[in-house]
């Protein structure tokens, strides 16, 4: 038994466990079964357990426990009752206390989100709106070297048509009787479908990539068949 767990055998054992887990999870493709359920729960448990350990070793211990216990920063103990307030949600009588801590974090997160929204979305809106058809800045912008004096205005024109058509599709304030408006709106609907198709295509590509990764592991690391 001791020989089995020699350091040079650990890699082989890990590969076999990985292969069994992979096959167990892929068994769902045949039909719903208990083996799949077992491995699904095993993975969720492992993920949560791993996250808890890392949160303790990398965050709570060095940033909270050690300063409080070993370095004399006793005031960090105030975090304990504050943290426990979250759990009062399980008591009908004391549930109101959980709102204090939830309210505090909602406020903090909402305030942060305002800043993030402005910093992330405003440049995006500016770049979508500021798309001149004559001498567009993209041609000379660093990093956008693939844009030519011909392709950049064309790109901006296509962008403009898409923005106007899609926005007209989402304009529900009055009935779209005018032929031009109805036509633009219909174009917007088709363009939306193109976008959804592109996103779905990317999703397929991502999922296939994951399949390739797993098959490569089985064929190369486990069965030694792949080059």
């Amino acid at each position: 038994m001791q020989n089995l767990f020699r350091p040079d055998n650990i890699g082989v054992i890990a590969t076999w466990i990985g292969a069994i887990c992979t096959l167990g999870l892929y068994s769902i493709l045949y039909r719903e079964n208990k083996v799949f359920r077992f491995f699904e729960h095993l993975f969720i448990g492992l993920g949560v357990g791993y996250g808890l350990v890392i949160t303790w070793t990398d965050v709570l211990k060095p940033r909270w426990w050690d300063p409080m216990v070993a370095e004399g920063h006793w005031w960090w103990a105030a975090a304990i009752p504050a943290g426990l307030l979250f759990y009062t949600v399980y008591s009908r009588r004391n549930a109101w206390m959980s709102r204090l801590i939830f309210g505090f974090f909602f406020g903090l997160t909402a305030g942060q989100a305002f800043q993030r929204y402005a910093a992330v979305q405003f440049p995006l809106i500016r770049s979508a709106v500021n798309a001149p058809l004559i001498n567009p800045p993209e041609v000379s912008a660093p990093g956008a070297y693939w844009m030519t004096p011909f392709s950049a205005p064309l790109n901006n024109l296509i962008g403009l048509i898409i923005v106007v058509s899609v926005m007209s599709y989402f304009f529900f304030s009055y009935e779209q009787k005018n032929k031009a408006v109805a036509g633009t709106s219909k174009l917007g609907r088709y363009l939306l479908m193109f976008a959804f198709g592109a996103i779905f295509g990317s999703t397929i590509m991502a999922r296939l990539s994951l399949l390739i990764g797993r098959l490569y592991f089985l064929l190369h690391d486990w069965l030694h068949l792949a080059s």
Partner: protein
Amino acid sequence: MNLLNRLQSIDNRLLYLFLALVVSIPLIFTIPAGKAVVLPQSQSFFKAVERMASDPVEQKKLVIFSFSFSASTATENLTQSEAVMRHLMARKMKIALFSFSDPQGRDLAQSLAERLAPEYGYEYGRDYVNWGFKAGDAGPNLKSLSRDIPGTIGKDIKGTPIAQIPVMQGIRSVGDVAMVIEIASVSSIEYWLGYFAATGKSRIPITYGCTAVMAPEAFPFLKSGQISGLLNGLTGAGEYEALIMKAGFSKQPGFGSRASASLSFAHFLIVLLIVISNVSMFALRRQQAAAAGREAR
């Protein structure tokens, strides 16, 4: 049951098996690949790193390499990370590995760096450091990081205070950061854009590698200039591998290049199945309509 009916009711399990076979063939047998086509967003990523590495001032600064993914998307994200890390190590940049979105990023980063370090003469502490996982709300974490890096990080994964690690000497705040590289399977890029990139005297270049699912949402950041380059899933990783190979920073193609043939085969199969199923569906409907017409007469 005629052929059209059969085509409409193929057992899904047969299709899965067929897909697995099609994907496996290029992994087992070497399929001669054509010349890799590198898309502009990957070239842009490569050029941004080259611009930074060629600038003597930027070379003294730190590159923050953020791992915001877990083992579940390692095929895409870890392959991207390997290609980019090879580039950074070949150009002798100082690297700080960091994870604030997923705890698994911490060890995925460390194992990758430990595997590549001997090849490029890198040493932990001297050339790279792992800041570990920092849980909690990313906003305050990154805002604090922009002002005081040693104070925010505290200790590395080995428990050494950040200020005592050689590679961190002289690194104080956002002004000492040359670039942020975010490799992610979640939309964590917004935290860097919102709380870090624009907090210094000049804007910090941010480059981004994401899963293919997220790429359509990432392209607008490229156009607006908020990110300097983008790697799109496994394809992006393969393109970056081609770029570093061409530049002589890597000796052999990585997994991204090897997997590209499998990906192309799988795409071809899916397109073929979509065409066959649609053609058979329309033909069957036509056949049924004709039969209904004959009965009505």
